[in-house]
């Protein structure tokens, strides 16, 4: 039993660390591609906590949920990258601070 050797809290700490990295990256980076990667990082941080809990409680639901998250993330990546290309073609920049037309 692998789970008994590595305590749950380690997984959660790693998961929290990954998520925090994602958040920080999202907030401080200006390049859309980097921000996009930060989102993926956050998602995977959460995925890690899902599987860790699932293994700890012997509940399959968490594992199944991770697959859903991955599918959605893949779809999101497809759409998101398409949007990024469209943005780059029209505005010729990837700096989010300059893509700010949607406001009052």
């Amino acid at each position, binding site marked *: 039993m692998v789970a008994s050797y590595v305590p749950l809290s380690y997984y959660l700490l790693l998961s929290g660390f990954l998520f925090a990295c994602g*958040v920080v990256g999202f*907030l401080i980076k200006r390049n859309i591609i980097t921000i996009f990667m930060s989102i993926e990082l956050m998602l995977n941080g959460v995925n890690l906590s899902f599987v860790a809990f699932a293994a700890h409680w012997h509940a399959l639901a968490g594992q199944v949920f991770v697959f859903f998250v991955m599918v959605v993330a893949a779809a999101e990546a497809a759409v998101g990258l398409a949007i990024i290309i469209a943005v780059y073609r029209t505005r010729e920049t990837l700096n989010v601070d300059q893509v700010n037309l949607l*406001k*009052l």
Partner: protein
Amino acid sequence: MTSSLNLWLIPVLPLAGAAINGFLGKRSSRRAVSTVGLFFAGAAFAWALAVAARVSFPHQPEFVAHWIRSGSFTVDFSLYLDQLSLVMLLVVTGVGFLIHVYSVGYMWDDPSYYRFFAYLNLFMFFMLTLVLAGNYLLMFIGWEGVGLASYLLIGFWFTKDSAASAGKKAFIVNRIGDFGFLIALFLLIKHFGSLNFDQVFQSIAPMKPETVGAGLLTTIGILLMVGACGKSAQIPLYIWLPDAMEGPTPVSALIHAATMVTAGVYMVARSHVIFERAPSALMVVAIIGTLTAFFAATIGIAQTDIKKVLAYSTVSQLGYMFMACGVGAFSAGIFHLMTHAFFKGLLFLAAGSVIHAVGGEQDMRKMGGLRKKIPWTFWTMTAGTLAIAGIPGLAGFFSKDEILWRAYQASWAYWLVGLVTAFITSFYMFRLWFMTFFGDYRGETGKSHDSGTHGAHNSGAHDGHGGHGGIHESPRVMLIPLVILAILSVLGGYVGVPGSLGGSNHFDKFLGPVFHASAPADAENAAMGEKGVSEHTTEGPEPETAASTELMFTAISVLAALLGFGLAWLLYYRSPQLPVRIAASLAGAYQTVVHKYYVDEFYAALFVKPLIDGSTRILWQGVDRNIIDATVNNAGDAAAHVSDEARHMQSGNIRSYAGWIAVGSAVVIAFMIWMWTQAR
């Protein structure tokens, strides 16, 4: 009597006329409008006559429809017919019909001919509702309705500013009186649980007269009197009636002389059961009546507008009626109401005929010498003048004499003031008569009357025929009502010749069942009352011993009337330059009277100006602007302000959004953790 009299037809007929003329009249010819108007007014009169022929008293109240049923309190549409309402019914429909006939001629050239007849019929409907009502609430409906009709007709020429504001004045002043009436009704509901005449009077009948202090009945009586003061133009609410002369002359005759203004007298007489048990309230009625009679008569002396003289005369005669009611002589009051309807209706119509003849002029100083030119008008007006002045043998003599005699039995003070008033009445009426019909014509010979102070009056009606051929007699359709009313003014008094003059006072006997049946249970006690409101001496058959005394008093009042005639003859016929000199020598007093004792100015300073100022400063600028408007505006401004600040959050900067989301999530998580620690 089992067979129904179908009383409901009487008010409904004029209503139908009003509806037809009101809705269809605009497209109909004048002939059709007058046919409809006359037919429905005449039908009401005919039905009233039929009812009078068939009715037998006591007549059960006629139930028409349910109205209000709330617990034990019920008010129905029910019509009540007794001798009192029958007299009123015949007066209102009869005089009303004659005035309708007259109006056909008088209003023929008016562009709003149909509107006039619709309003007149509407007035008849409400007045008949008032008269026939079987309970106070239905009476109040009629009461308000005649007020409405009066307002509409005073302001008939509403494009004229003075007419429009006179209408408003009448309505507002009446509203003050109505307030008292309403409170009286609420008190009746509270203490007797009903407004039906039968039930209210039955529950009051066993009560003792309130000889000491003011109790419930006194309060109700005085409040009813406040209502009557408004409608019947008594002090202090009489000010609207002279202004009401802005209306067309037939309106002044019908509403402001013959019928509507007597509604207050009718109401007081109808409520006699209450008043008989409230001597202090009766005393208030008598004093107000006496003062009004005298006060208005003195103003009448100095008026120069022919209709204004008659208006103040009406106020004064109404005062007589209240004086009669106030001394407990209700039937004498109603008798005078009836004869007054004849001769004052006649006088107004004749005045209208004079105004018509001289092309819209109302100033008597510009009349004169009309006797030969308009003989029919002259002779009918003479009949009316003699009747109101109290010349023996005519209607006004009998009724006024009856009132003065009853007043003397109550107190010599009422009699004395009444006698002086009779003298003044005779004086100002003959003054009007001499100024109008004798001497030389003082108006301009041309047809175009100047638009000076009075020339503007009636312009609506007379612009049309100001130009056809100088002074001329009125058409026959106007003269026939004059002649009929003149006959009634001469003969109308003979239904109530007092015992001392060899008559048997049929009128008093006829009304007897209404007023005698309900006299206070212990009349002895009432006789001890301050004013001796004892039904068995004042209203019952007169004691024989009094007959010679009464004759003497009759002689005195005839003397007063003749004195008035003599003085008027001296001043306005024999030496017409004298009045000017007298007026000059009495400058101060004369000016006061000419300005109607400055009552209008006094009211304006005391009530109107403070009200307008208060409304402007406190209600409009203070409450409305600074509180109500300010609340709404500030709420709107604040919302706009906050939104303006908040919208900057949507900056378009994606990283700031992310920052907000992060902060928000952190707050939510922190809150949940806090909740979790609390829950443990």
